[in-house]
């Protein structure tokens, strides 16, 4: 400040204020200029990124994965804000077998968007590819819990199904079942979808829910062959043979398993001596028929074996069979106890025959199931 005089001091202060004002104006001008230049640069980068992305996708489509990776990397460098580029890069890296690289890209992306469904889904798929159940479950759930637009509910369900399929391949039936129960609680009336859910229930070993879902499908599409077959199989597994027969009767028989099951069910329903509403003649006929078949199987089995190699079990069964043959001739043959004892003996013979003399026939299996149904257990 000048040593004296308020006029000089005021002039100095005015000059400084003016200079500061000029500086502030320059700063504002520079800010606007820089912002405009930066925006133009951003547009250029976005255009370049889009072009690299296009080239990357093209390279992926033609199977040039390395070129695709290179292009997609450039796209992500030019415009890091577009998650499509990062996701495409991660996908390309995963295809190339660079799981670590793909995971790294996705983890980075996830840090900025932890609830992004697509990012979590890709991370889940990477973990699934490496059979890492814990990580896969975590990321699949993150993906499922993410905010999905209403119109993408189908895509969300598809992710859920993907998780269930993965769990089943990893023999995690319990976890798969809990996911299936959650999924089935909110299914639309969509026959193919319900059919898949029913099949997954069946695969997970829950035939009751599988049957329910198959029945739902049949409600929507009564002649759906897969649903009929599935429902028949589920009912068969549940021991509901008449119901199984109803479905399997209508199911197409192109598939061997459907044909075989239907044959067994037919045999089951026509050979069970303890079936309801049977006349005494029919009951006797069935018991005699079953027993005679079991005896033949046992004799044939003994003939196949080298002399002197028959065990005490087989000899015991032969002796029991002879005794039971005598009982069958008596009037008490149709008493409940005798029929049950007969079924028990047939079951035990079938068990030994199947164990020692080759693959079971359809009737062997049917007789075994009849025995099991009536509480006969092989000893």
């Amino acid at each position, binding site marked *: *400040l000048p040593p004296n005089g308020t006029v000089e001091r005021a002039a100095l202060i005015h000059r*400084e204020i003016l200079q500061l004002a000029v*500086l*502030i104006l320059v700063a504002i001008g520079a800010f606007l200029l820089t912002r405009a*230049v930066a925006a133009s*640069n951003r547009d250029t980068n976005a255009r370049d990124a889009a072009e690299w992305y296009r080239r990357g996708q093209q390279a992926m489509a033609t199977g040039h994965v390395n070129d695709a990776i290179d292009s997609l990397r450039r796209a992500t460098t030019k415009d890091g804000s577009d998650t499509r580029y990062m996701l495409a890069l991660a996908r390309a890296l995963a295809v190339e077998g660079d799981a670590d690289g793909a995971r790294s890209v996705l983890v980075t992306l996830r840090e900025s968007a932890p609830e992004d469904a697509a990012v979590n889904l890709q991370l889940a798929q990477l973990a699934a590819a490496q059979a890492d159940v814990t990580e896969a479950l975590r990321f699949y759930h993150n993906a499922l819990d993410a905010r999905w637009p209403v119109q993408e509910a189908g895509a969300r369900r598809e992710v859920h199904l993907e998780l269930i399929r993965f769990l089943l391949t990893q023999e995690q039936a319990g976890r798969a079942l809990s996911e299936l129960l959650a999924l089935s609680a909110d299914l639309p009336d969509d026959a193919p979808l319900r059919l898949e859910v029913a099949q997954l229930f069946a695969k997970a070993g829950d035939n009751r829910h599988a049957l329910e879902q198959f029945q739902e499908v049949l409600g929507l599409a009564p002649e759906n062959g897969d649903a009929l077959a599935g429902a028949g199989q589920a009912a068969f597994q549940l021991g509901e043979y008449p119901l199984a027969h109803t479905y399997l009767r209508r199911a197409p028989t192109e598939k061997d398993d459907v044909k075989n099951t239907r044959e067994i069910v037919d045999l089951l329903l026509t050979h069970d001596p303890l079936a309801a509403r049977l006349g005494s003649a029919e009951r006797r006929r069935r018991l005699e028929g079953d027993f005679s078949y079991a005896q033949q199987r046992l004799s044939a089995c003994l003939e196949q074996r080298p002399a002197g190699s028959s065990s005490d079990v087989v000899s015991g069964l032969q002796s029991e069979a002879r005794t039971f043959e005598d009982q069958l001739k008596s009037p008490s043959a149709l008493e409940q106890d005798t029929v049950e004892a007969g079924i028990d003996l047939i079951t035990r013979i079938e068990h030994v025959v199947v164990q020692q003399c080759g693959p079971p026939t359809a009737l062997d299996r049917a007789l075994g199931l009849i025995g099991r149904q009536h509480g006969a257990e092989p000893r």
Partner: protein
Amino acid sequence: VSTPPRAQQLRLRENQLFLILTIVIGVLAGLAAVLFTVAIEQTSHRLFGLDPSRLRLFAVPPLVSVLTGLLLAKVFPDVRGSGVPQTEAAYHLARGAIPAHVPIGKFITGVLCIGSGHSMGREGPSVQIGAGLASLIGRWLRLSPQRVRDLVPVGAAGALAAAFNTPVAAVLFALEEIIGDMNAALLGSTVVASVAAVIVERSILGNEPLFHVPTYRLMHPAELAAYAALGVLGGVVSLVFCKGLLALRGLFSRLPHRTKVFQPAIGGLVIGGMLVYSPAIMGVGYEYVDQALNGGMLLKTMAILCVLKLAATVMSYASGNAGGIFAPSLYIGAMAGGAVGMVVHRIAPFPTGEPGAYALVGMGTLFAGIIRAPMTSVFMIFEITQDYQILVPLMVANMLSFAISRRYQPVPVYHALLHQDGVHLPSPVTQAPMSVRTARHLMWTDNVPFISPDLSVEHARQWAREHDAPAYLVGTRDRLEGSVTRRQLEQWYESGKAADPIVALLGDSFVHVHPDHPIDVVLERLSRSGGMLPVVSRTEAHRLEGVITPDSLLTFEHRPLAGEI
């Protein structure tokens, strides 16, 4: 209410003005740094296009370097290289005065050099541009020289904060590197400028981090040994870089002066050839650092890029182009670290972190080894990761790299570069407090005897016999070549070098002091000088200011210092 005393009023007004200026300079320096970054990207885009051909990769660097060579030789001669050493010199030796053409020239040549593919960084030039703007504004506002000087690190911190998006590291860099004192009173001002610059930068470029860094985890305590090995490797690579840079730059500086205009183009030609082989070494190269951090590179690729980038940066810088070594040191460090990480990942018998974590630590390691700012390095990586867990391995690796680099390259690279230009910065060890008498008080300036540098040893010996003194200066007052003792002359004469000119026998450096060196430094160096200690300028190390002999000490007349009664 009593009016405050006049001196207090003055201080108060200047302090208020300084605070406002700090904010304005922070904003302007930040804007300049952002504009510089964007301009480099745009230039690179225009010159190389989306997918350059091999011919274009080869031709662009030398062709543009012809233009920048002209600019650097004829229009902006003092804007070559990084800008950090020049800023330090302006702060310590020129009271913060940076000519107006420097920030302008640095901006233009920096954009052209880095944008045309030279392997150089944008942070160093940003520092010089920010500091230059600050100095310009301070002088325009007619602030006191001390205040103008104080504004230089403020502008530098603002520019660096915006260029690297790390405000704390920028403040530390200004204190550690520019001022050279971590306890500087300018801490508050640099913080304010740094924050203002970062706010501006983020408002324009968004909050996108410079690098996408994966979450760091120390998987096993034994991993620290691997990080220590990385620190040792980082120290060695830093040494190779510094020694190589100084050697090649020395080679270029010894070429005839008329070639100076073409030297950047020679560098451009070499860089063009390297770009044809590997375009990944082009320019700043942060996208490749990002790839290394995220495990997107193969071991072989990283090892090759580490070597190529080092060679390219040394060539670009040494040939006199405008650009920094800040970004290349991070690049080289990331590649070296990533490569070490991959090897460790493959052979270690214990669980190890991702190679990206090693790349990250490698960045800090090379920065600590080359730039020699260990605190800045640690905080910079910490700011990038925002992860406390990385601090321990980072500090282990950084300190080892720093120690190795300092052991075998005692002068930091920025100071060594200034030495090559004849500028000697005061070091904290030899800096004299205000109250201490210095070489300036001891030296005498009249009747200094000089031996002509072209004189043969035989003639010099004869001349010395006629002028009794323990040692003699060789050269002139404006171009001092060194000093020689009588004993040295006798030895050269007896070893058959009688006809050789003296200047050919002198070493590259000679024992000297600067006028501001304290007496204890003078005494130590006088004992090594042979009895005739030249006092030379700090800004022109070959210009003689005076001489000190043992007699100077005996005849030293006590003169009161300024303010002393």
